[in-house]
């Protein structure tokens, strides 16, 4: 667990330092829609941007405004204060308007020599899929050109294979909470999900294997209520841990540092097409349009399998995508008989934890748990 703790406590972790020492290039990305296999195949170390709950945004606030999402402001802060200086390049995605703002300001204030924009469609129809295939091809071209990489189908297939393995292992740990005793808490699961984008894929396989090895001997965790949590982009492991202390354990979630991370259904065989399908068809994010029923079904299925007692849906202040979709989800989950708590929060606002805990505690009391 020490390795996991270090991965989720420090941005410039030991793997980053090792990569720097051996001369491996590190490229940052933020959104789940980024096909990281392409970076793996290019011999790069894909590092997922995160802020680890750090709420200071002094430098970032000179660029983004207080009407922008705190998570993006915190990531920008770390980009400007030197924490992310180890990145050799950045890949932008149009995950949401706040994220676009973060990337634009980062590149404006502290430009990187490699900056590539992967434009992710907001629909998942056949035309959008063709467009996304082109985007992946353009990414390959850009990486080959800038880093002198030689991405080919063989390398891509290998990278896909290893990510498939990772997804299967993550799913195994994730779903271990669904039948009977809970041996892994929700915040530990989030730690794993946050760790995922913090180290090279082969190292993460080893870490997962180690974790799986400990599963059997773990003691069951006391559980007052089985909760589903979902909503805004957050890597605030500490927040989930604090809330779980009240006794409601997160047994399923739809966070992008969570339950959305290992969905990989695809039928295409050619690697670029396969990647396009993996990343676009399985993107269970409200930034996608015309497929709310799919997202709802994904959540309802988890809720049923995990035998959930209640759902807590978060959104970071000013996050429109989750703020709006949570209201619709709340209606649908309540129709399905599940009590729901909506929580608007500031990212990384430790001082506000007491008020969040009051609401979650009252929710547990409402559940008669």
């Amino acid at each position, binding site marked *: 667990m020490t390795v996991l703790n270090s991965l989720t406590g420090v941005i410039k972790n030991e793997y980053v330092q090792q990569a720097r020492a051996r001369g491996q290039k590190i490229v940052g990305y933020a959104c789940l829609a980024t096909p990281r296999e392409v970076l793996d195949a290019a011999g790069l170390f894909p590092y997922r941007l995160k802020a680890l709950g750090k709420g200071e945004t002094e430098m970032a606030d*000179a*660029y*983004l*405004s207080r*009407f*922008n*999402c705190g998570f993006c402001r915190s990531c920008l802060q770390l980009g400007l204060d030197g924490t992310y200086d180890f990145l050799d390049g950045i890949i932008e995605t*149009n995950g*949401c*308007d*706040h994220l*676009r*703002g*973060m990337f*634009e*300001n980062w590149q*404006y204030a502290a430009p990187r020599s490699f900056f590539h*924009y992967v*434009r992710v*469609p*907001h*629909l998942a129809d056949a*035309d*959008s899929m063709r*467009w996304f295939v*082109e985007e992946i091809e353009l990414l390959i071209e850009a990486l080959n050109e800038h880093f002198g990489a030689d991405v080919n189908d063989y390398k891509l297939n290998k990278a896909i294979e290893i990510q498939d393995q990772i997804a299967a292992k993550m799913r195994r740990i994730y779903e271990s909470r669904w039948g009977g005793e809970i041996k892994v808490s929700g915040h530990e699961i989030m730690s794993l999900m946050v760790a995922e984008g913090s180290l090279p894929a082969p190292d993460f396989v080893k870490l997962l294997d180690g974790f799986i090895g400990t599963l059997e001997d773990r003691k069951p965790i006391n559980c007052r209520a089985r909760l589903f949590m979902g909503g805004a982009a957050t890597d605030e492991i500490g927040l989930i841990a604090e809330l779980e202390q009240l006794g409601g354990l997160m047994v399923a979630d739809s966070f992008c540092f969570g339950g959305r991370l290992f969905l990989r259904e695809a039928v295409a065989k050619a690697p670029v097409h396969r990647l396009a399908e993996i990343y676009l068809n399985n993107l269970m994010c*409200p*930034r996608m*349009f*015309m497929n*709310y029923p799919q997202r709802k079904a994904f959540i309802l299925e988890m809720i049923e399998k995990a035998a959930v007692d209640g759902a807590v849906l978060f*959104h970071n*202040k*000013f996050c*429109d*995508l989750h*703020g*709006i*979709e*949570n*209201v*619709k989800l*709340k*209606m649908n989950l309540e129709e399905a008989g599940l009590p729901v708590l*909506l929580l*608007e929060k500031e990212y990384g606002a430790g001082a506000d934890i007491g008020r969040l805990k009051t609401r979650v505690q009252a929710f547990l009391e409402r559940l008669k748990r």
Partner: protein
Amino acid sequence: MNSISKQASQTGLFSRVYSLFSVLKKLPPQLSEEELEGLIKVLPADSANSMKSLLKPSIQQASMTFIQMLSTALEETKAAKQSGKKVVLAPFNFPPEIIHAFDNLVPITTEVLTTLGVVALEGQGERYWSYAMGLGLPDHLCSANTIDLGSMLSGMDFEPDAIISGCVGSCDVNSKTHEFVSLLVGLPQIALEKPPDNTARGLKIFKNNYYKMIRQLEELAGEELKDENLRMVAEKVNRCTELYRDLWELKKQIPCPVPGIFSLFICATRFAMWGRDEGIKTLESCLAVSRRNFESEAYRSREEAARVFWIYLSYYYDLVRFYDWMEENHISNMGDALQLAFPEPLDLSSRETILDGMIESAWNNVMTRQMGAASMSQRWIEDIVYVIKEWHINGTIYCGHHSCKQTWSVFSMARNEVLKRTGVPTLGLQGDSWIRSMTPMSVIQEEIEQFVHNVINKRGRRRRTRA
């Protein structure tokens, strides 16, 4: 829905706006001062304030045509159901001319309805906003959309037959709000995605999406898009474009002969009645009034303390204390970024060339062009710089409409770049363009006063002109 919230919304926004306009359109084409006085006395305070401003003698000719245009739009919407036509609700950044080319479709623009409600109704749009908030929606949504859609959500207003989400890819908050309404009310949603790619490739993808949307509209209308209709609309679109450009040219004059409120008329025409005779008439009367001003010795000799451009939106909830106040203080209100669409005449050679032109017009429409570009800041800044030079602007203002996360994301950058490239300062305000209780008008006025006197004038860039 709880009864208290329902009670609060009472009657829908559309119904109330429609009722008011069906009275206003019966007004004689020219109102005497006594008649205007009389009208104002019978109207509730909020409506009276707006009418006082709209129907003042100096702009009455244009305002009357404008009111007639909007009445027609509202009537067509209202009559659509009875005549078997389908009403398509679209956001402001979706050019409506393509819908006008269908026999069986009628467009209605969300933001135009909201603005009419805010301008013309007692209590403005707040009851509908509150209704939407009561559903649990967050308070950082766009009021321009949420006020009208809130009314629709209350189930007490007219329901369109489909909703076009014309800002997928360029505005999360509005496209998500459209989706929410579509899901809740059970309306078919047509999503037109704009790829954030300024190259020919991006345009090609957009073109494909647009053609797909036409097919969806044809299905909804139960008719094919007819060449003759398309041509007829296109010809009128070109006339609108011509008039729009004439007005643009006039704005270069010092002092500016185009009254500030005309920017509102022009935008409403672009958003709702572009390619229609009523739209042409509105623009023609705006042009006639502006030309008259230009030719008037008295008008030309008036003082112009500042020429101010709103780099994003303006405030639309208080015409008397805002548009009139600026005029009284000799601040030329040069309009807002809703005018930065740069329409080009359509090539009428064939169906394909007409459609290509309409697609490019949609691609380049306001906000889509700027916020929906590869970079949210780059095109926006370039357009601001261009308009500053074209219209001899000496001060710009950012209204700080809370919900616009895109402009808020890059405002700081835009302010720096505009200053660097043109030397023109920008005042940053915070407020909501459609909800008065977010920032009181008196606070806004005070900040503008300070900006004009202490920043614009001090910088020696004042373009005061006396004949």
